[in-house]
């Protein structure tokens, strides 16, 4: 197999349990976003745009939809003769099935996949984040710094810092301290969960970590602290731009609403850095004579006969006459009947909302509309 300078490993096994029933049947990276995409489109498109053509996608939790969505990777131009996308589920060896117990063990169990390409560098990505980033520039930085490991870093609001791995660096951006989810963070420079490892270091330390019975086999908790302890050269790569970890229903809703603001940092219309996605092939959207559409993102295949205000509508959504949809996200193929009011809600895929339904939030909570929830409202339905 052809030798590759850099191979990406995309961790896509996350459950995202705080997304509630959104991730009941699918992994977090497969959650729909932005009227057309799934979260995993962002790291995969970043790879394609950064000239990284070999990507291992590690799946574990609810992989069915993700597997068929990724397919052979052609949507991201990653169906290649050499390399391309490979889905890497956990597998059984003669003695046992080896589930991925942590981020580090997931990569460790696929060292053989990596060895095929004899990479010089391995880029480790998470399938949970929405952002546009040039990994090629990060790799150049890693090489320039002669780093063993480079971790991308972003400034986060202080009140959220304790959700992340927090870094302390010297003036040369060399990492001197790393705290995974500290209760009292020392600063607000958070790890984005994007690492570039030089291959030898990765291999050596993953093998070491695997032998340690006390390790939880996690990059942030175990591998990075071990590398710091041994005085390896870890550098921070500062990232500026839009980056969002959509861990909760609220933050998923917020990220969708971000797209509607006129000065949004996440430009989906940039032809030089396209976000690729599996295209649904539906007819253009139809906006009827009675419809009112304002400040919204609407995808193909939608039929709008009501009012849509500050909302994001995925493909194939229908909105009936007299219905008002405000500050909401309507996922693929959901149909909203006539004379409904939906405000500050996320309506899940394929949900049918009966005529006259009123769903609105009176506090800051975002309501997740599912078939189960509606059958509670309409017992006879």
């Amino acid at each position: 197999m052809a030798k590759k300078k850099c191979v990406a490993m995309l961790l896509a096994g996350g459950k995202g349990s705080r997304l509630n029933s959104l991730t009941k049947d699918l992994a977090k990276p497969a959650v729909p976003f932005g009227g057309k995409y799934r979260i995993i489109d962002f790291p995969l498109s970043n790879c394609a745009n950064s000239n990284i053509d070999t990507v291992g996608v590690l799946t574990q939790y609810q992989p069915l939809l993700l597997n068929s969505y990724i397919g052979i990777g052609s949507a991201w131009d990653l169906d290649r003769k050499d390399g391309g996308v490979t889905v890497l589920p956990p597998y059984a060896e003669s003695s046992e099935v080896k589930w991925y117990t942590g981020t580090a063990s997931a990569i460790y169990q696929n060292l053989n996949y990596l060895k095929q390409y004899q990479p010089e560098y391995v880029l480790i990505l998470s399938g949970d984040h929405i952002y546009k980033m040039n990994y090629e520039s990060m790799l150049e930085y890693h090489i320039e710094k002669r780093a063993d490991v480079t971790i991308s870093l972003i400034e986060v609001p202080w009140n959220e810092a304790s959700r992340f791995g927090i870094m302390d660096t010297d003036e040369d951006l060399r990492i001197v301290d790393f705290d995974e989810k500290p209760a009292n963070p020392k600063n607000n420079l958070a790890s984005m969960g994007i690492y570039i490892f030089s291959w030898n270091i990765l291999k050596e330390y993953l093998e070491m970590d695997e032998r340690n019975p006390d390790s939880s086999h996690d990059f942030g908790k175990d591998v990075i602290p071990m590398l710091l302890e041994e005085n390896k050269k870890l550098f921070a790569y500062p990232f500026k731009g839009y980056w969002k970890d959509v861990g909760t229903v609220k933050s998923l809703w917020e990220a969708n609403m971000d797209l509607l603001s006129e000065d949004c940092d996440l430009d989906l219309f940039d032809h030089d850095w396209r976000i690729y996605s599996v295209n649904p092939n539906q007819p253009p959207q139809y906006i009827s004579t009675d419809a009112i559409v304002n400040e919204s993102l609407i995808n193909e295949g939608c039929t709008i006969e009501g009012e849509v205000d500050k909302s994001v509508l995925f493909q194939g959504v229908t909105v009936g006459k007299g219905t008002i949809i405000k500050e909401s996200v309507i996922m693929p193929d959901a149909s909203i009947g006539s004379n409904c009011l939906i405000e500050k809600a996320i309506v899940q895929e394929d949900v049918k909302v009966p005529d006259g339904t009123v769903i609105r939030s009176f506090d800051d909570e975002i309501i997740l509309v599912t078939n189960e929830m509606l059958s509670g409202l309409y017992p006879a339905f």
Partner: protein
Amino acid sequence: MKRNLLGVIDATTYHDDLEDLITHRSLAALPFAGRYRIIDFVLSNMVNSGIRSVAIFPKMQYRSLMDHLGSGKNWDLNRKSDGLFFFPSPIIDNDGHKIGSFENFGENIDFFYRSTQEYAIISNCYTVFNMNFRPILDWHSRSGCDITEIHHKDGGSMEMYLIKTSLLIKLIETRNETGYTCMKDVVNDLQDLYSVCHYGYDGYAVMIDSIANYFSTSMNLLKLDVWKELFLKDQPIFTKVKDEPPTKYVKGSDVKNAMIANGCIINGTVENSIISRGVKIGKGAVIKNCIIMQKCQIEENCYLDSVILDKDVKVEAGVQLFGTAQSPLVIRKGTKQGALMNS
């Protein structure tokens, strides 16, 4: 008992009445309904009818058609055996003497010899419809006719013919002796050498042969019942997919009765119009009764009524353009409509 059907699309047609839209592209590649090319309808119908082998015979200006079709992947026709075949004509019309489709088929007769399908359907490339050919094949094979010509309920021929592949080969081989240049010659021959039956189709179907009818057919898509008859969930019209984001309706935009493709940014007013992929409409601009093709840019405070903008047209701020429903104004591909030029 699954009988195999071969798809043959004659894409050599040129309609003078469509000239402004087809000088640089094959009629088959004429953009339609915001994201399609006209050939998508017949091609998708063939695929949805279970046809696995489709031959397309284009003549001039086929670059855009080839670019559109690619390997046939979007129609699931990039197959190891069968799939999509593209046979550009090696012959050029000389003055006053048009080459018939049989001549083009004859240049590639080996393809027909090699095809294993028992029947062939030969179709034009410029009909807007959503039809399953399977029932017609059943009807044809029961009828015992040599040739079935599909007719529309309104009377006219739809220029689609079902025929045994072996008979088609014979017609191609003997074209010089018989004088038949195309299927139309065969079915209209008063000698009645072959039994010709008519199959009546009563669904929605329009053959696009003039700018006026291109315009009115496009506008008819804004009727929800027509839209629903053309775009069926279980018989989708496939096309080349593009990675455009959803369309963005900016604050202050006002859209009524419109069909809008992906990747547009709409600031102004749009009424009774078809907007293709990647179109930008500036603040204060008003678009009424228009067909706007891919990647057009309409700047602030323009006013357009009954206009067809071909691809990549830029209309500068404040420009006003008018046509009429009977005679829409056509602006050619890639041109710039400046405020000065207009005054």
